[in-house]
């Protein structure tokens, strides 16, 4: 994270901004009218693999309404003239910790959330914003265990605050398999046991209900039989059993079963005499750190495991840990400076995932990588890990390598180096757009410029991989969030 000297007076501004967030939320669209923005672009890289000239993007209330050469504009409609610019989907960084402090945590704590630690300054995300990033996934800290759940933020508050998704993917570290692999597999197995526990309780409940219903039925039948008989005492209220005949079963199933062990005791009804409505099944409580894993195993929408793997070996450990489970997951490999290199290459970032490229490809993994070339371990040969991954059939998403300002500022330049190293331009664009959105589980809303998606755009002065290309404007949900003309946030 970059450090910026904050004058004492600015502190007030920060707090003012913080206080203002809830007040300003959705202020822009409070009037009830539809809010239209049209962006006339010279060229559009949609992120779906297409690149079109002279396209108008029509935005309605922050979502893309139409995109094409001839789009009828409603009135009133704000128009952004970008006919000399190149538009592409705003960059998404799947791994960032900007504005967050390190809260120590240990073990498997999937119940903790980054959102609880999120107190951003108004200018917290200015660096990525100016570099063309519109969305960040803020991940929990630490390199061990399961530190909690990520959140998704936009880099500028355009009317509804920073938060896009307060509770995102579960982050799991696998850098030190000796501890982490066991932790991950135990979390998954624990969740499996929780699911089994609930299913068992449900089965028991159903069985009891059925038994109770049968008993009731039997009683009714008996009553029906005995009704004409003179032995029945007259004032018996309906529903209460008559003097039952000697029952062969000494412990008849009560119609209202006692709460089972592990089940929260149900509150006694105020009027116990009245016939109760059919009981609802109350599942036994699930341990909070395991609940997200239960969701993962049950494939709940939005459940995603964001796994930080180290070297290629740790991926094998991930495969072992998740052998019996089918969990939606994204792999993130940080590119750490490799050790033991000869002098001129010392400290150059790199990863050795290419060794296992075939395995990544077989599983069609989505791998989040920094856009860097790597060195072969122990040698000074370059290897283009992102390219090798794509060749093998895996998907790659690019993310800046850490939160240093230059990682954001030189993001497209770094991608350019990877393209120069042999990666196909289309693959690189997909890695910056579509797959980056997939990597944070936001493919429904972000990543490409298509009808219905969020209007997060980046307007560049030239092709994104042109070294001289500058960010002219950043549009977040239809609003100009940053522009070069104004030298900053709008």
């Amino acid at each position, binding site marked *: 994270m970059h450090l910026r000297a904050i004058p004492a007076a600015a502190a007030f501004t920060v707090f003012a901004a913080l206080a203002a967030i809830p007040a300003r939320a959705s202020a822009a669209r409070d009037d009830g009218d539809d809010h239209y923005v049209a962006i006339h672009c010279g060229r559009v890289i949609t992120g779906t693999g297409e690149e079109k000239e002279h396209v108008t993007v029509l935005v309605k209330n922050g979502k893309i309404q139409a995109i094409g050469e001839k789009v009828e504009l409603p009135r009133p409609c704000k128009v952004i003239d970008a006919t000399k610019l190149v538009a592409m989907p705003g960059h998404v960084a799947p791994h960032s910790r900007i504005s967050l402090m390190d809260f120590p945590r240990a073990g498997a*704590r999937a119940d903790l959330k980054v959102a609880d630690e999120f107190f951003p300054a108004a200018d917290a995300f200015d660096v990525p914003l100016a570099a063309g990033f519109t969305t960040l996934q803020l991940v929990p800290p630490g390199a061990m265990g399961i530190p909690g759940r990520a959140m998704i933020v936009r880099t500028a508050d355009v009317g509804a605050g920073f938060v896009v998704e307060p509770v995102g993917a579960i982050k799991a570290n696998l850098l030190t398999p000796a501890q982490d692999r066991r932790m991950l*597999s135990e979390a998954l*197995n624990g969740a499996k046991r929780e699911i089994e526990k609930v299913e068992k309780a449900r089965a028991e409940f159903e069985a009891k209900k059925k038994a109770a219903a049968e008993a009731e039925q039997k009683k009714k039948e008996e009553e029906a039989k005995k009704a004409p008989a003179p032995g029945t005492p007259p004032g018996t209220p309906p529903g209460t059993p008559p003097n039952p005949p000697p029952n062969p079963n000494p412990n008849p199933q009560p119609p209202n079963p006692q709460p089972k062990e592990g089940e929260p005791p149900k509150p006694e009804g105020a009027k116990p005499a009245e016939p109760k409505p059919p009981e609802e099944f109350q599942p036994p409580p699930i341990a909070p750190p395991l609940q997200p894993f239960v969701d993962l195993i049950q494939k709940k929408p939005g459940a995603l495991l964001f796994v930080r793997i180290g*070297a290629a070996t740790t991926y*094998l450990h991930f495969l072992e840990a998740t*052998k019996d489970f089918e969990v939606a997951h994204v792999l993130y490999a940080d590119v750490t400076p490799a050790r033991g290199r000869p002098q001129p290459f010392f400290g150059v970032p790199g990863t050795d995932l290419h*060794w296992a490229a075939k395995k990544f490809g077989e599983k069609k993994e989505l791998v989040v990588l920094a856009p860097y070339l790597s060195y072969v371990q122990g040698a000074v040969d370059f290897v283009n890990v992102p390219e090798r991954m794509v060749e093998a059939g895996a998907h790659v998403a690019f993310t800046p390598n850490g939160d240093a300002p230059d990682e954001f500022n030189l993001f497209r330049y770094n991608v350019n180096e990877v393209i120069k190293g042999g990666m196909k331009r289309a693959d690189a664009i997909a890695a910056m757009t579509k797959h980056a959105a997939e990597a944070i589980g936001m493919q429904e809303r972000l990543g490409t410029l298509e009808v219905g998606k969020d209007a997060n755009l980046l307007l560049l002065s030239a092709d994104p991989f042109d070294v001289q290309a500058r960010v002219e404007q950043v549009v977040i949900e239809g609003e100009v969030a940053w522009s070069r003309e104004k030298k900053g946030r709008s």
Partner: protein
Amino acid sequence: MGRHLEGLALLLALAAAPRSPAQEAFTDVTPARARLDDKKPDDKKPGDEKKPADAKDAKKPDEKKAEEEKKKKEEKKDEWLAVLNGDVHTITDGVLRGATLLAKNGRIQAVGYAIEVPAEAATIDAAGMHVYPGLLAVNSTGVLGGEPVDLTTDVYSQNMTFALACGWTTMVSGNSAGKLTWGSLDGLLLRSNLWMRVNYASGDERRRIREELDAARDFLRKRRAFEQARASGQETPEPKPEGVNEAWLKLLGGDVLARFDVGSVEDLRSIAKLVTEYGFKAVIFGATEGWIVAEELGRAGVSCVITPHTPRVADTQRNRANGATIENAALLWSHGVKVAVIPQSQRLSSDGLLDRDLRTPTVEAMLAMRGGLPHDAAEAALTINAARILGVDDRVGSLEPGKDADLIILDGDLLAYDSFVYYAVVNGRLVYDKAKEPLFRDLRPRPSTYKEPKPEPPPEAKPEPKKEEGAGEKKEGEGKHEGEKKPGDAPKDGEKPKDGEKPKGEPKPEEKPKPDDKPKPEEKPKPDGGPPAPKRDRTAISSDSIRADS
């Protein structure tokens, strides 16, 4: 704080929870392993991981069965690897010239002649080359991880490739033996809890150890008496191991190997005495002056891991033999001591002097030969003897059917100064190919003869492979295993010529006489009843790459 405690409690609960299918699968036995286990059900090691899994299996047999069924469905095809036409040095069973070694699912299926190689098998043509079991490093640093080895080893590391290129396939790191399964975690851990270090140096320590051993021995005797009494129907109170050190019980029970790190003759003599008296398994690392007390060590039945070339000048002031000699290995060996050899420094470097580290595994063994150790014993010191000392000789250390297919293929004799490792195979998988790795690629290159596995032929008409003259083929448990899935057809037309078809009189230019070689029992076995043999395929090797001096 409370939350942290909660988390801790949860973790503890998770740890105590029953083993999951995932864990089970991880420690589950492969069919091939099961086969070995069938053979020797009691041969479980103390550190054997499978025990808990087995215990659980016993609990839920039907569940396990269903799981197995499912697994069988998902089971991958058999993986075959055939090393053709090489001179197979089995170590335990002589040398088979121009023989075939066939591995199935990581295990050696057959070694010998006239072995049908399934058409889908991956092959390495080792014509003119020498096939040895992979070498064992009884100690190492920097290749495998720490404890636990299977969770801390980087299986894609350059050091692992380097170690394979030097000929090692199994290494000890800390107290565990692991294999160099490059690119895979399967079968990495060979055995954990190899030994118990014992410090028997000072007088106080010695007294304490002897007292504790006495107590342990007394207890064991009492327990045996109790068991005998109970067997004969008497009611006696069961003795309780109060105040008895558990470790010594294990040691005396033969479950654990004691490791001593000593070199001086006084220490060696006292250890020999101790081991003779109490009768437990022991290995001595160092044993520099072992040659002086070789007879006592041999009688005590201890093993030695030595570095033959350890300079220690004799102290002439002393009135007895002392110091190091290059004959140490030979003298120990001649007195029946199991000898394994390791280089002086157990790391891997590219800048060390010759024989100083793991880069040159064989130099120390060759120095031992200079001191009089026979060629066979020197080979064994790097392979089977090391495996025996570590208690893993049922898996590695020699090329026998049923053992793991861990082998190296060299262009010359293992104990020649100028032999290169061209291929290394671990668990039936090619993990090092000199022609493809940048390490030694440019030195004396030969084109790779490795051929990827071919897609499986249609399942009909798959005769069992005939093994007419396989050396030391495993008899038991074999048929059952083959029943599951038969090897493929006989090689189709255009396949590699079959193994063992080397005509009798064919010259072997690269074979050099070994004066100190014991006569090999199967030096010249020939497929008598076999079909007329075509010429051995040598096209894969260019003539100029065969060394002139051999």
